[in-house]
């Protein structure tokens, strides 16, 4: 079955053929997968070598001339390392790009901290409210999101992961109800690949589970419509990344918020992504413990 990275590569290859505005900037990651595209479009498939600051600077320059750049690497190199280039070479110049990352959170569990970036979405929040952040939960959500991104000039971050749900919901830009609880049921919002563990964790509980692949801008009207007193966020990146947005959206209504996600501490452990999910309390058992404790009942 196709994974998200392959879905990105297939779609980006097609976009390069279809749309002369599309340009791809790489920094030695995924270069082989674009070898034939680079023969067909040598001026629009650009590998700058292991130079991520330059990758974003080049993307900014391409956008200044009217092209639509896509820049791609591991999240930690694309976002963390090139943060000031994103801030200045894109945002401050008033131009956008599509930034497509792989290696979300602890996908690179065996590689260690150097290859992990659980704080990437929080970094985009620090840049203001201009960025759209897409966190697909299924490979079939990737192509429509990338195609949509390629047609605009907006700044868009597409965060790909090896973690995935069983089912795709390409239309879940806003909060999409996956399971509806009874009247006044607590609301559990799952972002991207956290949906399946969240559904498993809340089995038998009277909660409403809503899903989105687009945490920025967060669907705050949808949140206000679905939320009652208790709200739980389950995010696949740093815990609490969306807390401020939820608090702002619900500022005028009494509410309690539990924000679950990746912990801030460098665990200094390897293992596989399932181990890290467990250590961060993001597997179904861990989520169930946290959510049950917060809601004050063990549920079914």
């Amino acid at each position: 079955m196709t994974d998200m990275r392959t879905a990105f590569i297939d779609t980006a290859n097609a976009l390069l053929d279809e749309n002369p505005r599309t340009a791809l900037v790489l920094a030695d990651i995924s270069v082989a997968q674009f070898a034939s595209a680079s023969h067909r479009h040598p001026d629009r498939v650009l590998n700058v070598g292991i130079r991520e600051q330059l990758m974003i600077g080049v993307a900014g320059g391409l956008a200044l001339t009217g092209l639509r750049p896509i820049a791609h690497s591991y999240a930690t190199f694309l976002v963390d390392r090139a943060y000031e280039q994103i801030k200045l070479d894109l945002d401050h110049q008033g131009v956008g790009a599509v930034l497509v990352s792989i290696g979300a959170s602890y996908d690179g569990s065996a590689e260690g901290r150097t290859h992990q970036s659980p704080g990437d979405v929080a970094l985009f929040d620090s840049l203001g409210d201009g960025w759209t952040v897409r966190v697909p939960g299924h490979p079939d959500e990737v192509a429509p999101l990338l195609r949509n991104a390629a047609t605009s000039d907006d700044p868009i971050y597409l965060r790909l992961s090896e973690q995935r749900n069983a089912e795709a919901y390409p239309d879940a830009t806003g909060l999409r109800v996956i399971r509806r609880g009874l009247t006044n049921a607590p609301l559990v919002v799952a972002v991207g690949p956290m949906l399946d563990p969240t559904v498993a964790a809340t089995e038998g509980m009277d909660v409403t589970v809503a899903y989105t692949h687009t945490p920025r801008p967060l669907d705050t009207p949808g949140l206000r419509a679905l939320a009652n007193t208790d709200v739980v966020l389950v995010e696949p990146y740093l815990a609490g990344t969306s807390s401020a947005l939820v608090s702002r959206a619900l500022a005028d209504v009494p509410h309690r918020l539990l924000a679950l996600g990746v912990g801030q501490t460098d665990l200094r452990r390897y293992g596989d992504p399932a181990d890290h999910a467990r250590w961060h309390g993001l597997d179904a058992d861990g989520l169930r413990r946290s959510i049950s404790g917060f809601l004050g009942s063990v549920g079914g």
Partner: protein
Amino acid sequence: MTTTLPTDSSARLPGLIRRLTGDEKHAPSAHSTTDVLQVLYDRVLRVTPDTADDPQRDRFLLSKGHGPAAYYAVLAAHGFIPDAWLDDLAGPASRLGHHPDRLLVPGVEIGSGSLGHGLGLAVGTALGLRAQGLLNPRVYVLLGDAELDEGSNHEAIAYAGATGLDSLTAIVVDNSSASHGWAGGIASRFTVNGWTADTVDGRNHEALYAALTGHRPRHPHLVVARTESKG
């Protein structure tokens, strides 16, 4: 497109710079970039206020955004901005700050200030023009010798040289302000990566003109403009 006819802004620049700085004592040469900017805008760049958004225009990117007085004065001398803007530098309603913002100032191609961003943007601009078949415009980017301390420049120097990005000219104004100097010279950092380079007296307009138009096919070009040490 209309190209810039040779003009001479020397008579107007001292007064314009004084309006910015309020400094009656120092000549324009107190600003290390004045002569390079004057030669570029008077004689080299094919861009005017009327063609400031024309895809076929030459691009000038000021990477070294510090001390932009000479830049603003040259832009005013060439009609990109009204002279009156110079009277309120960095005031609360001013469009001109201590670092230029491309969204606020007509004719300014990039917002700069944090060092080490202009060369990467210039490389991307040159690549974007080439990819759209815009082969006439040239991309000029001005840096300072101390700015070269930033490692991001060296990413761009190596890549532009390796790929023979020959529509790009970098200008390094060298007033010996890098804390640890550049043993072996500035030009060698570029030429070892495949750039051509001319090192000239940064006050000599004829030498600057020759260097700024001295690019060769298949290589990005460097002009090192030496001025007196900051002291």
